[in-house]
């Protein structure tokens, strides 16, 4: 199958365009997604292509935008709602948790909420304490919700298409620093990835490194360094979706390597890594030769200063250090 090299934002844009062409019930809502073409240009050209009926600029009313998506989904449409950053999604927490996620269950399946809520997050652009966070762990907690967090252009496209076709509400987390990253994307219009399938980015026998979003790339860089500088072969896994989580692939790897490092940009307490570490120790305790290591963002609101911000975000050095912690003393 042929493929084209493109940036993450272009891959997401293609996914939206293709799914809107495929299904008339798919439409977009969000702040500045139409005339302005998106704060991060993910929706570039879509209003010109599909018109104002299907690409809807909204007022700055996050809870109502999401809620209107919930209502439209209940009435049979497939809304894709863009929230400008994950921090702004907090203004819509009521509609996301009390409504989108709860409605199918609390009305006993009489109605579905097939909607996607896209939101970019993550640090690295000096946007300070209200525009730079990582809330995957909070969204991961919500029963009734699916959570995707793609790290490559190909996954971005394949998972977004899958999210739009899924009958469940989906939180779709994008990372601001990955929008410009290029990657090969299959040309197949049915390039739709299953939720709940890890990608094994690199194979290795010595330690398992699990990383999401931008940290999937940092994990790969760390693995190269571990191999070159320490002779340690790391297996690098990108879960791609956190709910459902492909725990089997992660456990299988840990049973092989007997060591695990989990890398995320979010906060440490109750984080993605905390959750995964609990699952690993519950289900693969006998296979562990070292405590599960977590590498997380610093436990502070994201600072503005470039040096402070970068010091608050995990880098390959942190991952290498954690992997060495897990392997030191073991032979």
């Amino acid at each position, binding site marked *: 199958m042929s493929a084209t090299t493109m940036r993450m934002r272009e891959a997401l844009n293609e996914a939206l365009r293709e799914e809107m062409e495929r299904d008339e019930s798919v439409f977009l809502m969000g702040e500045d997604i139409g005339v302005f073409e998106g704060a991060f240009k993910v929706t570039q050209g879509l209003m010109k292509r599909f018109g104002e009926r299907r690409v809807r600029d909204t007022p700055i009313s996050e*809870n109502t935008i999401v*809620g209107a998506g919930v209502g439209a989904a209940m*009435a049979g449409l497939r809304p894709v709602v863009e929230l400008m950053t994950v921090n702004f999604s907090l203004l819509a927490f009521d509609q996301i948790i009390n409504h989108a996620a709860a409605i199918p269950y609390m009305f*006993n*399946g009489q109605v579905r909420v097939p909607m996607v809520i896209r939101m970019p997050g993550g640090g690295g652009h000096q946007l300070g304490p209200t525009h730079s966070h990582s809330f995957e762990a909070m969204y991961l907690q919500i*029963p009734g919700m699916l959570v995707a967090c793609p790290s490559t252009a190909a996954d971005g496209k394949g998972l977004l298409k899958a999210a739009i076709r899924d009958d469940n509400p989906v939180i779709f987390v994008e990372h601001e620093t990955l929008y410009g990253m290029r990657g090969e994307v299959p040309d197949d219009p049915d390039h739709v990835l299953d939720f709940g399938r890890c990608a094994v980015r690199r194979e290795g026998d010595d330690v398992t490194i699990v990383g999401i979003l931008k940290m999937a790339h940092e994990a790969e860089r760390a693995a190269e360094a571990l191999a070159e500088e320490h002779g340690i072969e790391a297996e690098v896994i990108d879960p791609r979706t956190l709910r*459902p*989580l*492909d725990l089997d692939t992660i456990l299988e790897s840990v049973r092989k390597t007997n060591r695990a490092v989990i890398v995320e940009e979010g906060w440490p307490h109750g984080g993605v890594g905390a959750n995964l570490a609990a699952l690993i120790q519950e289900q693969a305790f006998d296979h562990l030769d070292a405590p599960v290591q977590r590498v997380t963002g610093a436990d502070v609101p994201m600072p503005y200063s470039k040096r402070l911000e970068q010091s608050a975000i995990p880098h390959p050095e942190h991952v290498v250090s954690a992997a060495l912690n897990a392997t030191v003393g073991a032979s």
Partner: protein
Amino acid sequence: MADKDDTSEVRTPAGVLTSSRGQALPDPDTSRELLRQMVLIRRFEEEAGRQYQRAKAGGFLHLAIGEEATIVGTTSVMEPGDYLIGTYRTHGHAIARGTDPRNVMAELFGREDGTARGRGGSMHIFDGDRRFMGGYGIVGGNLPIAAGLALASDYKGTDDVTVCMFGDGATNTGNFGETINLAALWDLPVVFLVENNLYGMGTAIERHSAVTDLSHKAEGLGVPGERVDGQDVVAMRECVADHLEIARRERRPTLVEAFTYRYRGHSAADPEVYRDKQEVEEWQRRDPIEIFSRRLIDAGAISEDELAGIREGIDAQVVAAVEFADASPEPPLDSLYDNLYVMPGEQEGWYAVDERTPDPFRGEREREAAADSRVRELHEAGASYGGQSPRSGGGSGEGPATERDAPADRAGARDEGEPDPPAGDEQVEESRQQGPGGIE
């Protein structure tokens, strides 16, 4: 707080109602049906209150007694394809939309035959077949959803419209401002209907809203409104019919403020310290059912005998609803994860995880796991804390007493060394008033 005179101007129908709607009675058949539905809702709610006292229904119970004309006046002029969405006080709305009262009662009982199979309870009644799009427990939470329903009607090119009902308290939420603006901006076919019963929980309207004439509250955002006598079913019908017509033909939103009153407390756990008996009595003289029955009798549209016949039939219907609910089984424990997700085909993966047992398993494998006797025992052990129904523990010897089994003298207690509940936190406040003594 406003002085007595100001208060009465805000609160009494004589001071605020100027509309001349409701002059002409509908035809006798329609009139009798309006009356029948109002009496059914009244009787249903009275019985629900009684069953709550008997601990057959759990949680919170918000009764709409006194607000029947607002409900029935509205639903009686809606088309079958129109969407109705409401609040946590919507047993009557579902029934008026055609939902079988037996299923509503079964939901209050938390049983298999409930409208949501015991998942939703009193605050979350739903009937998709009749386009009753739900009761919602979050004040103002249904407004954005109403905008979405209306948007979908427009998007699909149907002439269906949405009626969004909410209380006076909801007009203070951010959702009110956001949704009214969006609906006006996008010309959405919604009738926003404020059931103004003069209290946001226990806070009187002049103490919770700077603008007390709610018919004007959305005007600055582009949605004009009209105040109508919510105790007069004929006036309600006329008014809502006109507003539905605007939504249906002109595809734009309007607001109706139904001026009404609830005769019972905010919920069954409300000691009603915030209002005078005299005020309640004054409003009881404007009982929507009494007013309308008298009017029908005076007009010769119904006889005393017919009225008695209607009441008798409804008594039997409500008794049957209780019997039905009582006979309906408890939801099986292995259905706990049903409808949490839409699970296509052989989809694998961790959608939900159950860690109630030593061997965590995935939620979608609940039934499989429950076949294991140890897992089943643990689930049963957990469920036994609920006894036969959520509020009937304590005496059964199965599991410990809970907050709900608190002695009567604890009801309404505010100071037992616990911190005060945060302002506006209805749930915390009410949970302190639980227990048999807290029920009216």
